[in-house]
């Protein structure tokens, strides 16, 4: 059992007022809030450690480097990567994906095929479209069912020896569907294809074991799991990362530089050109410590209770339509009420101090599939309460009444 009251006290933002009322923060799938423990690490870094890393002989630089590299080890352990140098620190999920797409642009050839899913977020669609334009490779899409799950039979029929890469999110941001990534990975490997899993939406709720999954690349952002924005990671199997060319040129990523020839640094630095987000990286590690301190399993089971309660209560509202009814879902509910525009519902909820996301959630193909302009999305975290869900339900009822 989580001591939610105690947990909430860790998050200063949860006590602020919005439009004169206690904030109800249900936009966790967009970004999670930051506990004091993580804020303290950022403040401490700039108050006590701030120095450039990996190059100074002086004490501050060494301490900052140690703190940064310790964070990498924490991330390695959390995701159970075999080697610390398989963890590349990036600016976030989007950069991690672009790094791989950029690397494969030198490897793919015309006629190769890539597979993505109909459940993807724009940042796991657009880089691959750009990659296909550059290389002449072809993009195939795994269709989705009305329940918001992937059509796995269709997936199998898309796989062939031409398939080089498969990209699927672990959890859909718009619907909360947990995709069967073990099966997706195993089947892709049978054809020699590599798999990248976008874990941005999964990691706040699920602790993936990259070795057990045998996944080739796994990416996520720190700000979805109580860490700061602007930092994230790319896990890649070392032999695959070694085979890719560097992403950006600059300091840090080189071994030797002459005007004739530059040799590149070893992993992970080969992919970490320039001064990184040092405070962010260290805080990423602290965020994982915080989440693990509470326990990922305890978090998941409490969030499942919140989801079940919110789903049951929302379903009592006349005209409610819930999008995404997969059996395995994270604590995300995407819904509309009758023909009410999600923007109207969201604007009224905002007046009541309730923060939800409205719109297409950067997943326009999913909205097109359901033929809607968007949805209202309420996404829950372990610091949310049943009382807050009651306020959401009352708020939705009130909004619908006003709009009718």
């Amino acid at each position, binding site marked *: 059992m989580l001591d939610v009251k105690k947990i909430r006290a860790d998050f200063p933002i949860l006590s602020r007022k919005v439009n004169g009322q206690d904030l109800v923060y249900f936009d966790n799938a967009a970004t999670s809030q930051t506990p004091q423990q993580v804020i303290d690490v950022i403040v401490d870094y700039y108050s006590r450690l701030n120095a450039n890393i990996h190059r100074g002989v002086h004490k501050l630089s060494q301490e900052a480097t140690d703190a940064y590299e310790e964070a990498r080890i924490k991330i390695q352990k959390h995701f159970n990567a075999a080697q610390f140098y398989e963890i590349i620190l990036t600016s976030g999920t989007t950069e991690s994906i672009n790094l791989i797409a950029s690397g494969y642009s030198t490897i793919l050839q015309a006629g190769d095929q890539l597979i993505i899913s109909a459940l993807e977020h724009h940042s796991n669609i657009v880089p691959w479209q750009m990659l296909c334009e550059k290389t002449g490779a072809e993009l195939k899409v795994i269709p989705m069912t009305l329940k918001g799950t992937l059509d796995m039979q269709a997936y199998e029929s898309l796989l062939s020896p031409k398939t080089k890469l498969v990209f699927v999110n672990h959890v859909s941001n718009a619907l909360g569907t947990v995709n069967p990534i073990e099966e997706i990975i195993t089947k892709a490997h049978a054809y020699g294809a590599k798999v990248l899993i976008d874990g941005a939406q999964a990691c706040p709720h699920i602790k993936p074991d990259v070795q057990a999954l045998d996944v080739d690349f796994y990416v996520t952002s720190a700000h979805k799991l109580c860490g700061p924005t602007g930092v994230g990671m790319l896990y890649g199997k070392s032999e695959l990362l070694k085979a890719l060319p560097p992403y950006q040129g600059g300091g840090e990523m080189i071994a030797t530089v002459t005007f004739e020839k530059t040799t590149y640094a070893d992993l992970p630095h080969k992919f970490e050109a320039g001064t990184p987000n040092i405070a962010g990286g260290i805080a990423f590690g602290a965020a994982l410590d915080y989440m693990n301190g509470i326990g990922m399993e305890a978090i998941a089971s409490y969030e499942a209770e919140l989801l079940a309660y919110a789903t049951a209560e929302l379903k009592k509202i006349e005209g409610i339509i819930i999008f995404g009814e997969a059996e395995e879902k994270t604590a995300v509910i995407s819904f509309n009420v009758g023909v009410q525009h999600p923007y109207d519902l969201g604007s009224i909820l905002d007046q009541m101090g309730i923060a939800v996301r409205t719109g297409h959630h950067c997943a326009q193909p999913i909205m097109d599939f359901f033929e809607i302009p968007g949805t209202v999305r309420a996404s829950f975290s372990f610091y949310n309460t049943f009382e807050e869900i009651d306020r959401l339900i009352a708020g939705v009822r009130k909004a619908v009444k*006003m709009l009718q």
Partner: protein
Amino acid sequence: MKTIEAIQEELIEEFALFEDWMQRYEYMIDLGKSLPLIDTAFKNEDYIIKGCQSKVWVHADLKDELIHFTADSDAIITKGIIAILIRVFSNQPPKAILEANTDFIDKIGLKEHLSPTRANGLVSMIKQIKMYAVAYQTQLN
């Protein structure tokens, strides 16, 4: 003909009567519902202003040297704000529209809807209203 400033003053006075946001929103929803519909011929891609979330269509024509605006949106609150904008800017000479400011939106407590980050198409709509005014002013010159 009332001037744009006079209409804006009227609106500010009307909105000052509301005691809370709910009354304000209910009024906007009513305005949205009573907004005369745009001719369906103009409810197409040519007249759409793409916001991130709600769609807005706006059309204008010039009659007796005054611009008449019609508009629509798929979201009712957006439509309510459009109704307010139309009340302020429709049936006005292009020059007056060009010279008018939109501070009244802030004064009637709807500032958040006009924030460029709100992405509901309204900022673009005001821009579009001004663009029509520029175009028709050029015709009149």
